[in-house]
């Protein structure tokens, strides 16, 4: 069976890989959007924190013998905690300055984190085993479905939709959204806004860390893995616009799939297709697909 001259196994395989990548884009751009909403900072170190999540998994296994499921719980806590420290120590000094300083500060942070990991782990990848329960592949007849990759797509969908639910449908989320619009007013209502900011930052970072742990068995854990993905995620954010949570998720997944399809039909373009789409969107709808023109 073939689709436009491509065997269905290869076609669906690439589609799945695209969805897996898209899941990571979605989780990262979601975290960026949540942080940007409240702090007005684009967190350049988001990729580095995603990488830290993967290394938490690697080190937990290597030093403590703790497996994948432990890491999935631990990494968001550890890396999220690290994020909170960063916010308390560094970020709060620059909220009053031009937003561009936030970008520069987090860029510096990303360099530091990446450099430290490079020192300890070099630049070649560290393998991480697929958890036992998800090892192997299911032969669906028309394609071989690697169990773990299917799990990644599912897990990240759950995380993303959960985040969406909390922000759009709960009281906590209501405070958050209100804080985005008018922090002074929310403060006046007796909400501890600085604490909320800190926790939001920690949460956004935790999302990146979960992404990192999920990515660990799929790709080689590598200190540079964060900077490789973050720029694509920036493009995703520009395409989607940061106005809507659901928008970030959909754009992330959608662009992953488009990348996957590009690999089937025109592999040379697969690494540039996201940027080309960004350019087109900028020409047609500068505020992004889901963004509001300010």
């Amino acid at each position: 069976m073939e689709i436009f001259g491509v065997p269905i196994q290869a076609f669906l395989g690439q589609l799945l890989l695209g969805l897996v990548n898209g899941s990571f884009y979605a989780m990262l751009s979601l975290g960026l959007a949540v942080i940007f909403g409240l702090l007005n900072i684009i967190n350049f170190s988001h990729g580095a924190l995603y990488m830290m999540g993967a290394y938490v998994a690697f080190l937990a296994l290597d030093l403590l013998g703790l497996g994948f499921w432990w890491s999935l719980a631990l990494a968001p806590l550890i890396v999220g905690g690290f994020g909170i420290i960063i916010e308390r120590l560094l970020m709060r000094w620059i909220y009053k300055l031009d937003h561009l300083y936030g970008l520069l500060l987090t860029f510096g942070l990303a360099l530091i984190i990446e450099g430290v990991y490079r020192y300890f782990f070099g630049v070649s990848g560290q393998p991480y085993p697929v958890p036992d329960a998800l090892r192997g592949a299911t032969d669906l007849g028309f394609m071989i479905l690697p169990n773990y990759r299917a799990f990644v797509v599912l897990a990240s969908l759950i995380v993303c939709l959960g985040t969406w639910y909390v922000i759009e449908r709960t009281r906590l989320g209501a405070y958050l959204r209100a804080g985005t619009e008018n922090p002074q007013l929310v403060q006046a209502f007796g909400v501890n806004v600085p604490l909320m900011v800190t926790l939001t930052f920690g949460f956004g970072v935790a999302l990146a860390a979960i992404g990192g742990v999920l990515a660990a068995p799929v790709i080689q854990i590598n200190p540079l893995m964060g900077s490789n993905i973050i720029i694509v995620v920036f493009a995703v954010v520009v395409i989607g616009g940061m106005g809507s949570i659901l928008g970030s998720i959909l754009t992330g997944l959608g662009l992953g799939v488009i990348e996957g399809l590009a690999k089937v039909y025109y592999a040379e373009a697969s690494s540039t297709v996201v940027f080309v789409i960004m350019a087109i969107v900028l020409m047609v709808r500068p505020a992004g697909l889901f963004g509001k023109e300010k």
Partner: protein
Amino acid sequence: MNNKTAVGFVLLVLLGLVAPYTGAYPIFLMKALCFALFACAFNLLLGFTGLLSFGHAAFFGTAGYAAAYSIKAWGFAPELGILFAVTTAALLGWAIGSLAIRRQGIYFAMITLAMAQMIYFICLQAKFTGAEDGLQGVPRGKLFGYFNLEDDIAMYYMVFANFMIGFLLIYRTVHSPFGQVLKAIRENEARALSLGYDVDKHKLLAFVISAALAGMAGATKTIVLGFETLTDVNWPQSGEVVLMTLIGGIGTMFGPVVGGFFIVTLENELADKVGSWVQVIMGAIFVICVLAFRRGIVGELTALFGRKKDVAV
């Protein structure tokens, strides 16, 4: 030109003229000058127009490739190679610039970064760039068919001349009526717009000039070293030029020059001794500059000598 700027300028020229006879490694001097010019070009945007481009490596590197290819494959003379490279960088600057100026602030930075990454991927895959091998063995050739650039001293003076041309051009731009409008845009874009200035056109022109001069720096560096590789178009290079400007002094005339020399020296001195800690140190400098040292070396010095200068992003 006020007194202090004039003194600084004379000092710069004198230092530049005698530098190759101080026993410094000429390749190092040339490299530092190229990066200083790159940072000056970048500063025209960030310091004098208020636009943070996070993708300037694209112009630096593309121009490097254009120079390398035209000299190696078509046998262009070095001056023609640089001219071709600058034109290429200006065109690319026009293309990326017209997209990026559709958004402001942080989005502008992200768009330039993403577009630059696209250029990186194109360079990675295109045939004429030699992908990961880069273009190697680019002959220095003879300037105007006469000065043999294989000689390091001759090469140095050509680099210095290029640097001065770029530097003076930026000085002229900043101190022209056009430059005044750029400053107005930096201070308050809405007001500049309401005063009737075509803000987008001014921004785009500043972007193109900046890209072209960044290209001149890249092309010159390629001729000095005889090769061009992906390092020059990749995002760390874009970050580095931001750092040079930041540490030297955003929006100052001499800041980027100081910053360029500072960073190149630092890398040169540290690379062998501390390995990947260089990156950590660069990152730390970023953080410190943003938190406590936003005026940069030259900005702080000017402030120290009494004349408060407005420093803004």
